[in-house]
């Protein structure tokens, strides 16, 4: 009979660690796998064709458990290792002879018989139960089962993590694939859009969201697919709420765009706070403007009054004189009206009105509000306007921007120096305004803070600390940019604003 060797040559030794046995097994092409106890058998993750357990374990655990183990262990042939047959109790020997278990003796190791005995056990088991095939299938199945279990665990874990992330983020989270199917929509997003708590996952976005949102998604999808945008922020007002949506393109591992991720926030209260801050700053600006306007009115009013008194005092009017007199009154009255209208324009609370304005006119108007101030007495104003430039946006906000920057400039000069105002454009889409002062300059330490709200270098009571923060906000909302360069004696603020004309490429 040719020596039989099973495909699986591992032999599990439970609670047996005898060097001589290990040597013999290896000599015969078997591989001993050691495990300390019956409880640890489940953890053995290699297949084995035979299990040998120490007789002590049978004594400790009782015969029944061993038999049970045999079945549990999926009919792997099992032998009991007996060190001295004379010491084995009668009852155990009786049990062994009646059970399916085999036994091996320690002296078989010494005599070199052990392996031929094991071969015999295996061949018999094989003939009896065709166990080896079973064993192999079993182990493959086990392996697969374990793998699937592990994958499921990982998947469960990831799913749970995703669900946790989606639920935990304070924003609404929406993910839409390129076909427009919603593949993620968290609770916050449902609440934000007041959607009934049905599962929307799998629906087309067009059927779920309000028109304004649908349009915004559509826009972004178009831009993203044509490569114009990777992300975008949008503010959309729906009823009384202002909703901010951040759009991001989603890519798979191969960097192919496969969807849009949207983070949605209700920013109504922030918007209100921002509006309040804006209005507070506007009031402060209005204070400056008001005294400027009051001063501006006195000049024409005194002329009108003087002219009228002169006319009243005269017995007879020479025609040419009368015409000159009343033309002057008419002109000065119109001047008063313009001044008042400017203030009203500024003071009236209204939604921003976007329109095209002559930048030169806005700058000159702004200057009239501050020029009267004592602090401007020794400040030379140098204007350098490029003719005919326009900017697109809200008139009163522009006035506020320039008023803030000019006021800061004059404060920095402490009443003495040169204020330079320059405008230019080298791109039909943009106009740049430079406001330069010869003042003390901006300290390096504060350069990165000057656009922060409530940051001020002025004495208490002199600045709200909101001026430049508002400037920054307004300019960004107008689609423009603001930056500055500063060294002692030469500080320039640059405001780049859109003209409203499309850039021709």
């Amino acid at each position, binding site marked *: 009979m040719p020596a039989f060797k099973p495909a699986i040559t591992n032999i599990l030794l439970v609670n047996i660690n005898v060097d001589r046995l290990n040597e013999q097994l290896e000599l015969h092409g078997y591989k001993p796998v050691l495990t300390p106890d019956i409880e640890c058998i489940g953890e053995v993750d290699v297949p084995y064709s035979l299990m040998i357990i120490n007789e002590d374990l049978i004594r400790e655990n009782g015969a029944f458990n061993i038999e049970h183990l045999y079945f549990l262990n999926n009919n792997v042939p099992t032998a009991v290792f007996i060190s001295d047959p004379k010491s084995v109790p009668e009852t155990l020997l009786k049990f062994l002879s009646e059970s399916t278990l085999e036994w091996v003796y320690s002296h078989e190791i010494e005599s070199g018989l052990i392996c031929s005995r094991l071969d015999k056990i295996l061949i018999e088991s094989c003939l009896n139960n065709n166990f080896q095939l079973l064993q192999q299938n079993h182990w493959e199945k086990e392996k697969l089962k374990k793998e699937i279990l592990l994958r499921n665990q990982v998947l469960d874990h990831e799913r749970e993590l995703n669900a946790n992330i989606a639920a935990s983020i304070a924003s609404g989270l929406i993910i839409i694939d390129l076909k427009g199917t919603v593949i993620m929509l968290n609770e916050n997003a449902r609440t934000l859009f007041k959607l009934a708590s049905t599962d929307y996952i799998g629906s087309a976005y067009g059927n779920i969201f309000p028109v304004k949102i649908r349009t915004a998604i559509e826009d972004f999808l178009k831009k993203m697919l044509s490569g114009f945008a990777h992300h975008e922020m949008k503010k959309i007002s729906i009823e009384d709420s202002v909703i901010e949506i951040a759009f991001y393109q989603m890519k798979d591992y191969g960097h192919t765009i496969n969807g849009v991720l949207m983070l949605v926030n209700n920013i109504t209260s922030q918007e209100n706070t921002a509006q309040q801050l804006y209005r507070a700053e506007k009031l402060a600006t209005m204070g400056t403007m008001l005294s400027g306007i009051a001063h501006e009115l*006195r000049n024409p*009013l*005194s*002329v009108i*009054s*003087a002219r009228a*008194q*002169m006319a009243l005092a005269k017995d007879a009017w020479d025609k040419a004189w009368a015409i000159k007199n009343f033309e002057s009154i008419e002109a000065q009255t119109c001047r008063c009206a313009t001044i008042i209208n400017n203030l009203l324009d500024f003071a009236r609370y209204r939604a921003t009105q976007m329109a095209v304005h002559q930048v030169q006119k806005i700058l000159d108007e702004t200057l009239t509000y501050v020029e009267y101030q*004592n602090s401007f*007495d020794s400040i030379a104003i140098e204007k350098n306007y490029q003719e005919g430039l326009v900017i697109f946006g809200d008139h009163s906000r522009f006035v506020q921007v320039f008023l803030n920057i000019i006021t800061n400039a004059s404060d920095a000069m402490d009443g003495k120096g040169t204020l330079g105002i320059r405008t230019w454009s080298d791109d039909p889409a943009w106009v740049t305004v430079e406001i330069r002062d010869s003042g003390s300059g901006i300290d390096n330490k504060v350069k990165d803070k000057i656009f922060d709200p409530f940051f001020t270098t002025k004495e208490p009571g002199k600045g709200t600390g909101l001026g430049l923060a508002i400037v920054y906000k307004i300019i960004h909302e107008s689609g423009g940019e603001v930056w500055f360069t500063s060294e002692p004696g030469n500080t320039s603020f640059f405001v780049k604003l859109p003209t409203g004309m499309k850039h021709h490429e």
Partner: protein
Amino acid sequence: MNEKILLVDDEVDFLDVLSEFLKDEGYETSTARNAQEALGTLQKDSFRLLLSDINMPGMKGFELIKKVKQLYPMMKSALITAYDVRDYINMAKNYDIGNIITKTTPFNFEEVRLLVRNIITEDIFGLEHYVKGPVNSMTIKSSNEIEQVIQKIVNAMSNARHKRKFRQALNEIIINAVYYGAKQERGDRKELWPIDVNLSPSEEVLVSWGIDDEKVGVSVMDQKGLLAKKDVLYWLERNTTKGEDGLSVGLLDDHGKGLFITRESIDRFIVNVKRGSKTEIVMLNYKEGLYDGYRPLWIQEL
């Protein structure tokens, strides 16, 4: 020959009407639209008075006057503005300028006429110049007459607005005239002033009052001429300049506050001084709503 006045203002319409008015008053006028033009005109022609706007493009009024004073020391000068004179007190003190006329609404031609006349003629003393109507006078010979005089003047005023303001102002100005002006007590040691003092004939204080269609007026005049223009400007400046705490720097001064408060509470506060000879303080109150606007600075020292 008519007195010549040079008017400087970037408000052309204003130049035109003021020039017309002053011509009607019998002056000869030239106009300039900025300081540079004015200096050019002055090179060609001489003038008795320069009347300049403060806030003009280029050189401002204060600088122009400073320059003109250096070049033509005999020429008289005054400033004119539509803005708040309080904001210019500091400059007035630094440039030693006593007269800043204000562009009021209604325009106060009468005041401009008077100021120009006063500056040119130096005939400044006496309430008759300031009030067109009968003027009553009393002399104060001792400190115990002060209360009586004040009561008499207040009684003569029909309007409660004037009564209230004038009582406070009179109290301040007459007491100062008697103790500081006539007796030359130290202004910063009021607590040491004796309660009863008698004034010799050369120390007597003359108080006049009168009423016309537009206003009521009181003049308080001593015979010492102790008050200097620069002191008045100094005290006004102390009380109009704000310190870092936002309060006026002169808030805790022992002296000079009364002057400032009086200037603030009375429509027109006029100081006429002939050094070593007499000091007159004229206080005018207009009918309510008349000549609203800012108060001129009106200090003339001969």
